[in-house]
């Protein structure tokens, strides 16, 4: 026991020391900006506690982690942020939440992916009591500043389970310089997208740049599901039929997947089925892809001079329109939640308030992350910031206004469902019969519903 305490002490000293070293600049800046202390709510109310937060390795995590010292100074709460790459993140979280482990106080989650499961298992804490209690929530928090539609995703049966940290939607990134060079127009429909990809392939080969792929999109299971679903909806497909059976083998779904798989196998990198956003953003940022279809969040990567070779040549376009002439994008959101087993719930709520306050959400937006707060998007500081792209803002807002939120199958065991679809996507990209692959998806999806429900 003594050993544990000594180790914990040594680690805390080490952690605080390093966090201070890292966060010194930001902390000074924040203090100079002046944060108001409101009466009735005390930032230091939970001083001395430690809050453990499990984060997904993600643009928002990258933004917030260096600022930890600022929070610690403000609240006196010690912050322990642990970030993992997505696969390990989900595993760690699952293991810890299901164990009722007190080692996790707060965590990132996506409602469409996790809320049903976490809710049914009682792993996520409703936060209405915090929001409605002025002594627990800073008056500057202004929860209504968050986009209403997005906030709604965090509500189940009248209870709120988290606060969004950003709103994302999948858009088309393209190389303005290459489009100009080859005289290409931004595709507005799926047919045009295919035509553009085809022409790009020829033109790039003719220009001796055949190692640049016309388009990079996700092909890896299960990540590809997130981009494929936009195409599914574009052809009029749905997740489930009225009778509750999976609709993934419908004619619309077959057409959508045939298109997606064809586009990727003909005009994408040969190792597409191993690629998720990590590989695709890298390809685009290194100049090896002329187009990329992925989350608008990744503007942060492709427009960052430190990680991108194509800064200044990036254009943004909305998802092309489907056969019905309309665009059918989806909207995704990550948020922060509190573990029901946590013994520092109040302190965790303080962390969430600070991490998602107006200032930090503005900072995130300026860094290229699509904030969930309306005030951030409208702020003059944002409009005049470095790297501001009107095109990106317009495209994003266009899609937000028409997007649907069911980018995942509306079932409890979402991962099983995503995988059911993902396997068909991989199979289709590899050239196998699309219908057969989707029939297998239906079988697995129905099984997921049978075992876990909707």
């Amino acid at each position: 026991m003594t050993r544990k305490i000594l180790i914990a002490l040594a680690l805390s000293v080490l952690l605080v020391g390093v966090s201070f070293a890292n966060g010194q600049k930001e902390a000074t800046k924040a203090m100079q900006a002046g944060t108001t202390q409101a009466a009735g709510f005390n930032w230091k109310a939970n001083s001395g506690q430690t809050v453990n937060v499990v984060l997904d390795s993600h643009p928002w995590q990258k933004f917030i982690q260096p600022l930890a010292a600022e929070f610690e100074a403000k609240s006196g709460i010690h912050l322990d942020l642990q970030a993992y790459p997505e696969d390990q993140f989900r595993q760690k979280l699952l293991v810890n939440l299901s164990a009722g482990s007190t080692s996790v106080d707060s965590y990132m989650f996506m409602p469409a992916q996790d809320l049903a499961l976490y809710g049914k298992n009682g792993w996520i804490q409703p936060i209405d009591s915090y929001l409605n209690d002025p002594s627990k929530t800073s008056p500057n928090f202004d929860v209504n500043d968050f986009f209403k539609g997005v906030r709604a995703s965090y509500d189940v049966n009248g209870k709120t389970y988290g606060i969004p940290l950003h709103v994302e939607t999948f858009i088309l990134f393209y190389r303005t310089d290459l489009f100009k060079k080859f005289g290409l127009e931004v595709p507005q429909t799926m047919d045009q997208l295919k035509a553009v990809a085809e022409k790009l392939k020829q033109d790039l080969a003719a220009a001796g740049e055949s190692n640049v792929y016309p388009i990079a999109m996700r092909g890896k299971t299960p990540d590809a599901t997130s981009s494929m679903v936009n195409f599914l909806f574009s052809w009029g497909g749905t997740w489930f039929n009225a009778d509750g059976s999976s609709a993934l083998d419908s004619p619309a779904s077959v057409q959508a997947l045939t298109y997606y798989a064809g586009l990727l196998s003909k005009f994408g990198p040969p190792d597409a089925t191993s690629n998720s956003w990590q590989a695709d953003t890298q390809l685009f940022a290194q100049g090896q892809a002329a187009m990329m279809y992925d989350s608008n969040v990744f503007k942060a990567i492709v427009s960052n001079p430190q990680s991108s070779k194509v800064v200044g040549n990036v254009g943004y376009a909305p998802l092309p329109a489907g056969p019905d002439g309309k665009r059918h994008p989806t909207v995704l959101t990550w948020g922060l939640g509190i573990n029901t087993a946590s013994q520092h719930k109040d302190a965790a709520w303080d962390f969430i308030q600070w991490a998602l306050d107006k200032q930090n959400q503005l900072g995130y937006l300026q860094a290229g992350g699509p904030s969930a707060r309306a005030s951030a998007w409208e702020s003059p500081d944002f409009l005049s910031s470095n790297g501001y792209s009107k095109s990106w803002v317009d495209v994003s807002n266009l899609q937000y206004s028409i997007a649907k939120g069911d980018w995942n199958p509306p079932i409890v065991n979402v991962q099983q469902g995503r995988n059911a679809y993902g396997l068909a996507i991989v199979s289709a990209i590899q050239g196998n019969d699309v219908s057969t692959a989707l029939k297998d998806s239906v079988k697995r999806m129905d099984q997921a519903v049978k075992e876990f429900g909707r």
Partner: protein
Amino acid sequence: MKIGNELHNAWTSARKRTRVRRWTRNSFFYFVLVVVMIILLFPFIWMILTSLRTQVENTSAVPVWFFKPTMENYRSVLDQHHFLSYTLHSFIVAALATGIGLVIGLPAAYSISRYKQKRLAFAILSARVTPYITFLVPWFAAFRFLHMVDTYTALVSTFLIVSLPLIIWLMITFFDDVPVDLEEAARIDGAGEAEAFLKIVVPLSTPGIVASAILAFIFSWNQFLFALVLSGPHTQTVPVAVFNFITYGEINYGGLAAAAVLITLPVVLLSLFIQRWIVQGLTMGAVKG
């Protein structure tokens, strides 16, 4: 005379030919040896090279063989809040698993060796046959129930699965090599079996014990699956830490390699110290069947 001369010439040139043949055979051998060693060690060489290059150099299409080494990657790994604490956790868990493995395993191995308890040996060693994942879920369920997830107790218990059979297997053959006469001599002097074990057999088998301990430590250190699932913020071990360099945006190749080097270094150093014993231990067990 002429015949003598001819014979002498024939004999000298034959010797010369053999010498040349031996010399070429020798250099051929060394050439092959060097090639084989380079192939075997290339991943390590690459690991070290990558850790000393910048991200730009690491992502170039043509490998950069000549460059100015930078320590930036190592600095970034060590700067990471958690890397050092992960290392500490790894060390503690491996040491405990090894220690407890010795305390439990040495007597068992001795008993099996002295009393020829083949069936017991078979039972314990058959633990190797079952895939580790089979244990994982039930263990996890049990630890949850006992509120022991993210504790050293849980991790060490699971790492024992790795260390215990290994220690027992190795020590059986080492104990077999200790002549029984020495113990009998001790018993004639008035010592009991247990005392003979502690005072005679253990000291005599120190090389074997050290080898088994180090091997057990190494395999515990290298353990990935259990740590991946069962550890939490307070006990996270170091193999999992390597994944932290696959962040969003880009794979930090240099940092990854540097982390890989730092993780592998302790076990490599340990193994170099005891290479003779590792070989002996591993092969004896196999050769004697």
